[in-house]
């Protein structure tokens, strides 16, 4: 079971980034082996469609669940197509959210905001 969290920095003491698509890094955490890997979010600097590209990175890393404060509609569409569950983070601490996830205290993220597509007016 692998989960992904958008994070500010490449350490477990860092905090959850409020944006999914434009988070600088993702933490990929294996709940079974307790192994953590940080990957750079190359989508963060995209002028448009960052959520889609970021979600693609998550899909390609064979993640089972995403923990995020919020999520754009396009990113959500990608994750849903890949059968990845989306949970809402409850505070800024990474460890706290992992613990809450393991203890099944996180709920599904149901507010999906419309994206902003970085396109010309």
């Amino acid at each position: 079971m692998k989960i992904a969290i958008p994070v500010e920095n490449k350490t477990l003491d860092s905090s959850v980034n409020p944006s999914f698509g434009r988070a600088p890094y993702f933490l990929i955490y294996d709940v079974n082996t307790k192994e953590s890997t940080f990957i750079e979010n190359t989508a963060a600097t995209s002028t448009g469609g960052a959520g889609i590209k970021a979600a693609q990175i998550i899909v390609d890393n064979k993640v089972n669940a995403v923990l995020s404060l919020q999520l754009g509609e396009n990113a959500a569409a990608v994750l849903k197509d890949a059968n990845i569950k989306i949970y809402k983070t409850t505070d800024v601490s990474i460890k706290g959210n992992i613990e809450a996830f393991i203890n099944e205290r996180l709920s599904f993220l149901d507010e999906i905001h419309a994206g902003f597509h970085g396109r010309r007016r």
Partner: protein
Amino acid sequence: MKIAILSGKGGTGKTLVSVNLAAVSEKATYIDCDVEEANGHLFFKPQWVQEESIAVKIPEVDEGLCDGCRKCVDFCKFNALAYILNKLKIFEEICHSCGGCLLVCPQKALTEKDKVIGIIKKGISNNVTIYSGLLNTGEPSGVPIINRLLSKNHLLENKLTIIDCPPGSACVVMESIKDADYCILVAEPTLFGVHNLNMVYQLVKLFEKPFGVVLNKCTEDDNPAEKFCYENNIKILGKIPFDSKLGTLNSNGEIIVNIDEKYKEIFSSLLDTVIKEVRYETVANP
């Protein structure tokens, strides 16, 4: 003769000037390029005679041919494509219709289909032919509609064409003034007004368009926009006074030149001045 009406921000009286110039002329075409908020038709209340859907090209995948190489996903600068569980997913509202994915696909698995983003309506109201573009809500770019609005068959060379531009100085405005013979900048007598006038002023200078300014909502007080024109040697084409009667008629969607003699005169003489300016420009800078 194509005259574009611009203003740095909304609410300065761009549509007021456009609508009344068209109405006061003998015969004119009025083109509403403010496709996010087309309002000119609310004044003309035209009889609509034609409607055309505007579509853009969006890629479509033949899943039988796609082998999952992802070249298209990697190529797309707009991130409009994703490849999930052996399936290509296309985000239509992100796509810019550049056609790049079709070009890079080694399997020729991609083709294009039309996607409607808005409509153009043609209407008639007395002496004025109206073309109005309307972008569907949620669609991010009105440029294809503006391009179609300004396509050659709507613009008759020998006739007066008034182009009501979107506010601001973004790319949609550039599209709107590209083919104009003359630009009228409408400005309000406020600090905001000057700031915004300066932006469209830079724009028309960049495009090397001949232009002049109409000062709207003029009062007895100091007019920073007028001062700006003097300082920068900008031609003032005319002044429209601040007038609550004008405000009320305008807020009800009335065309003031059809009701009030004084305004009929103001706009007639404004139109004459502009036409003279354009003729002079064609002689001086053919």
